[in-house]
């Protein structure tokens, strides 16, 4: 049992690290559809992590959460986003507020910051998933950074979804999943939020002939 849990813990760490790695890939990627593919990949890593945690801890309800992640974040949301991108006239991020190398460096800094913040509270967690909480916080911060650094409404949306993935990893890894009713509610909210944001992107495209959020400057002091 000791051996199993140590292998398990390493596997969970590996999967969390892969999630973090895809974050960096998303930050480095300019093509919008590739960003969406990377997000789908990241979500599938999340499914694997959640399944592992479910198997190792014996918490049945995490299987449900993992299944829902698979359906919603690997299948439905990427398809919706692809549809939205098809409707756009520009498929690439042309101008970014922060260029790629600087962005990657900043993300590296954010990871260190996340580990620094999470350090005092990590010893509380179970041995299995101890480091995942810090990684989850790092993913949340990188998602936030992506939303600030990118211009296109779609890539901001991807940033938001990455942030949400980080939260889900945190909830699964640190606490072995929140009460089922809360998790279902969170999935519901994320799904609706993505659909609404997709509709908005189309409307912005029609009204402004662009989804550059920099053009949204009518309202200011």
């Amino acid at each position: 049992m000791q051996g199993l849990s140590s292998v398990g813990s390493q596997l969970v760490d590996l999967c969390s690290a892969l999630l973090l790695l895809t974050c960096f890939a998303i930050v480095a990627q300019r093509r919008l559809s590739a960003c969406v593919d990377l997000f789908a990949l990241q979500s599938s890593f999340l499914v694997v992590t959640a399944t592992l945690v479910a198997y190792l801890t014996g918490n049945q309800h995490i299987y449900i959460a993992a299944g829902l992640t698979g359906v919603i974040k690997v299948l439905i949301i990427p398809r919706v986003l692809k549809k939205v991108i098809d409707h756009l006239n520009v498929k690439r991020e042309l101008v970014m507020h922060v260029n790629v190398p600087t962005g990657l460096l900043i993300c590296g800094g954010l990871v260190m910051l996340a580990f620094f913040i999470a350090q005092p509270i990590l010893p509380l967690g179970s041995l299995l998933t101890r480091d995942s909480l810090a990684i989850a916080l790092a993913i949340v911060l990188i998602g936030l950074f992506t939303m600030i650094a990118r211009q296109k409404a779609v890539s901001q949306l991807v940033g938001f979804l990455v942030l949400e993935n980080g939260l889900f990893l945190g909830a699964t890894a640190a606490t072995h999943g929140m009460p089922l009713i809360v998790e279902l509610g969170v999935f519901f909210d994320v799904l609706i939020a993505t659909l609404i944001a997709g509709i908005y992107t189309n409307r912005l495209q029609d009204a402004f002939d662009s989804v550059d959020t920099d053009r949204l400057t009518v309202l200011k002091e």
Partner: protein
Amino acid sequence: MTIAVLVVLIAPLLAGGLSLVVHRSAWLHGINLTSIGALVTAETVLTHTVLSDGPVTTLGELVYLDALSTFILFIIGVVGLACSFYMRSYMDEQVARGVIAPGRLNLFFFLFHMFLLAMVVATVANSVGVQWVAIEATTLATTFLIAFWKRRESLEAGWKYLILCSVGISLALFGVVLLYYSSLHVLSDASQGLNVTALLPVADRLNPHVLKLAFIFILVGYGTKVGLVPMHSWLPDAYTEAPAPVVAMLAGVLEVVAAYAILRVRVIVDHAVPFAFAGELLALLGFASLVTAAFFILIQHNYKRLFAYSSIEHMGIAMIGFGIGGPLGTFGGLFHLMNHALAKSMAFFAAGNIHRRFRTVEIEHVQGLAMAQPWTATALMISGLALSALPPFAAFASEVQILTALASQGVPGMEFAGTSGMVTVAVSDQFSRVALASVFLIAAVLSFGGLLYRITGMVWGTPSEGIVRGEPWTLGHLPIILLTVALIGFSMFLPQPIKELLEQATSILVIQ
């Protein structure tokens, strides 16, 4: 008891479902008024029960109602009722004018009911997690209401609102996860780990490090919804672009519900962490909001933005009250939440009337309101005076309470080198109290001057050519009259049930 809770939850749900299938305007309004009437009635029953029997847990521990949540429900009910009456004349005029296609009217009502439902769920939920889901649902329900006119500006405001609030709320979710993380080590039944009823008895055994981190995330997250500086940038845009009844709900109720979510967690945190930690953070954001908003009120040339910044100012004042804590500061803060909700919804009703007549949001282009729309002019003056916290309005009483608490107790943690190291003010206790009270007074006086100066400029003078004079009576005037009575009345005579609710809610928030 359980029936009343079910009515509060099912009335908006049913009304929302019916709104989707009904198309006649009169029916839609009828459904709306019936459901909000049922909600208010059930709310009255709940108030009575909670006051006589104490807190209630029902529906399999999913619902928890104490004096604090009942008080918030009361605000939702009153402002919701006022809005429903106002909508009767407002929406019909927009349809008649062709601004809203008749076919979209039911979509508006559907979203309105979902918004109401989400706020009720957020208020009565026992689990902090369910509360989070409901508050995120309010964002989703209102984003299309804000962008309802489909103009470029409203799309921009709606998008900003959706993105900023969703991100803010996601940070709050991380806080909720951390709260759950801390409870796992203490509670045996993990499925109860987010319930307020389960957390409160064991709160003093929760890990303080985790709770501190959790509170920061939750404060920043829900603070975005409250509109606290520096997370406020969506608020003035959204309040300018959204239809008037929606803004009245956003300003009057949603801010209060988000503040309530912060307070719920704060009580738990206060058990395990020194009181000064949360108090200091709340007061810090409160002062930032108060001072920033006072500045923007002074330079404002758009009356809807003027009221939006006034919202930020008043929520800042309430947060300062909660930050100071103690019976006086907390009571003042809660009382201020209610006074602001009533006065601000009335101000936005008046603003909606002005916008429909003058077709502009620029203060300079609105003149002679007293001649063009005497009823609206009166409403604007009354709400303006109430928002400036002048006597005899109740907001005066609550602001004085907060100021007294500030001058006598000071903000915990701000008078010495802060316990948490956040603010290091190495000055004597008394000096810092006087300094903070002066900042408070100066900001309050600045915004008072700015607000009244702008409003009186709009009311007096002669209306320009082409503006119709005179204002026929509509159902939309009823809530204005009722709110006026409440605003003045509450300062002289606070009805016994409301007073008891306020006192009991205060005692829930103050830890002996």
